């Protein structure tokens, strides 16, 4: 057991001298301290960091351009030439896998951002105003939740056509209900508290109370939700691409690389063609879930760690 760092302590190097002499452990720092105890979450963070570095720096780590077709070297098993082998058109699987990671990362982050934005706005309005506003927004949430998300996404994807931007918009626009419900619940409990009442007495406008007074309190539980949202978005993109309605070829994505496994011959004779994206998808989502769990535990004040 390490020294307890809670409470008041002096740490002169951490703070600007003029600001304050005493440092009270901030909630963020406390959460981080608690998060570090969750060993699996920390390990997952490192693995995810590694995957992100590979994805972001894909052009540096690739040995062949991801779309370079080489028909003389098609369907080759892993070798020193091609670390993970080649696909039916002789494209390097290693290059395509790390480039596919970029697609997953871009889709995951942007779609999660979009759905968090929508969910937070709707959830705040719903939880703050309650009554008729809440009623309308919650029924809307019910309807969106009633449709199995992928089904409606497939419909829209078929109408608007596949493509990276459309995939992000579709996933973002349809995965907000969970976030909205979470934010709404938080607003329900905060809006009754005295600091909100005080702000209201001072004549602060609703918009400002929502954004400046209540919302910062919701950020902590929201963070865990955002983490899960990123994981879900990555999975959804892979799913849509797997069905041929996500990111179109030749752009490599884990989903459309996996799609090749729907062909029984490739499934049987070229496991190296589809295993890497399958393993990467699984690993990424696993890491995201562990991190989300760690965050949730670290932030939950009722849980004693």
């Amino acid at each position, binding site marked *: 057991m390490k020294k307890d760092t809670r409470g008041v302590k002096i740490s002169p190097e951490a703070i600007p001298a003029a600001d304050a002499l005493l440092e009270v452990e901030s909630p963020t720092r406390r959460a981080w301290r608690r998060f570090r105890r969750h060993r699996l979450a920390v390990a997952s963070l490192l693995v995810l960091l590694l995957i992100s570095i590979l994805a972001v720096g894909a052009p540096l780590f690739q040995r062949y351009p991801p779309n370079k077709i080489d028909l003389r070297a098609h369907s080759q098993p892993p070798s020193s030439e091609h670390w993970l082998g080649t696909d039916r058109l002789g494209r390097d699987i290693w290059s395509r896998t790390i480039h596919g990671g970029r697609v997953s990362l871009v889709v995951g982050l942007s779609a999660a951002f979009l759905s968090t934005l929508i969910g937070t706005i709707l959830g705040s309005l719903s939880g703050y105003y309650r009554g008729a506003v809440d009623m309308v927004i919650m029924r809307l949430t019910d309807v969106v939740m009633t449709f199995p998300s992928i*089904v409606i996404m497939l419909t829209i994807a078929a109408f608007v056509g596949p493509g990276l931007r459309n995939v992000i918009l579709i996933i973002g626009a349809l995965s907000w209900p969970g976030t909205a419900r979470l934010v709404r619940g938080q607003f329900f409990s905060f809006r009754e508290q005295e600091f909100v009442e005080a702000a209201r007495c001072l004549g602060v406008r609703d918009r400002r109370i929502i954004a400046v007074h209540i919302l910062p309190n919701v950020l902590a539980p929201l963070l865990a939700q955002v983490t899960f949202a990123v994981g879900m978005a990555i999975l959804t993109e892979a799913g849509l691409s*797997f069905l041929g309605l996500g990111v179109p070829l030749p752009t490599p994505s884990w989903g459309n690389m996996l799609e090749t496994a729907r062909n029984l011959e490739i*499934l049987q004779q070229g496991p190296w063609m589809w295993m890497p994206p399958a393993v990467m998808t*699984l690993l990424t989502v696993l890491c995201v879930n562990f991190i989300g769990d760690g965050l949730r535990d670290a932030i939950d004040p009722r849980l004693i760690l």
Partner: protein
Amino acid sequence: MGRYLLRRLLINIPVLISVTIIIFTLTELAPGDVTDFFINPELEMTPADMEQLRIRLGLDAPAPVRYLRWLNQVLHGNLGYRFKNGDDVAWIIGRRLQATLILIGAALLFGTLLGIALGVFTALRQYSLWDFTLTGLSFVGISMPAFISGIFGLYFFSVRLKLFPSGGMWTIGQGRSVGDLLYHLVLPAGTLSLAYIATYMRYTRFSMLEVIRQDYITTARAKGLPEHIVILRHALRNAILPVVTIIGLSIPNLVVGAVFIETIYSWPGMGSLYLDAVLSRDYPLIMGINLVSAVVILTANLLTDIFYSVVDPRIRYDEESSRG
């Protein structure tokens, strides 16, 4: 009880109406012109002929009128006809729905039984090697989407080990027997249920651990009741309530998982039919399947609530139900 059920039933009506509006609007916004499917490309069509065709098909009416007409037909059980081959949409969905319900039902049954059993098992052996192994595996299970478990299952158990067939619902050329169906069902239902076994196990374990520390469990043991009665009748009965909710909430996801599993194992269900409809932009079929799956999900939610009120005698029927 009757009034509670009636209220639960009535709540679904506005949701269902919104669903029909959304489905209709989506199809309205869809690109392309419906008349394309009715025109013989060999024939010359003048704009006047086109106008004539639109009037004959009722496409000249404003959208709300057409919506009401469509709704009227739907209420009479007519979901329209496929663009592709003129098949009756309601008929073909009915045929495919059966296969999907078998798949989802089997996966749900498998997931529930195994998940709850494993949850109880690990809860009773908290912090043992079994507990750590199974809890660890459950994390992998939860993170495993149906298209990955499906592909892995197909590769290892069908292609490599040749234990099960790689697809379809019946062996061709043989009479239809239950045994044959089960043989074909094991892999699709097993891989579909994987994520749910993991989810239900985790919730059951968590819930059991909470219940098992309650005083009434100690009392039951002190009375000298056999351990299996204490666990099954006293603990599990209470621990299972939150799990029932989770099972109900996971049904939309099961429907999604079935779409992937059906395409991977060529299971002749609604999911593979839907993909076919989407890829060929067969609007009547798309509308029909969306509507039917929404009804299936709403029904499943309703059944969950009813089941919940049966297992939990604390629910008071004269008040708003426990779910927000």
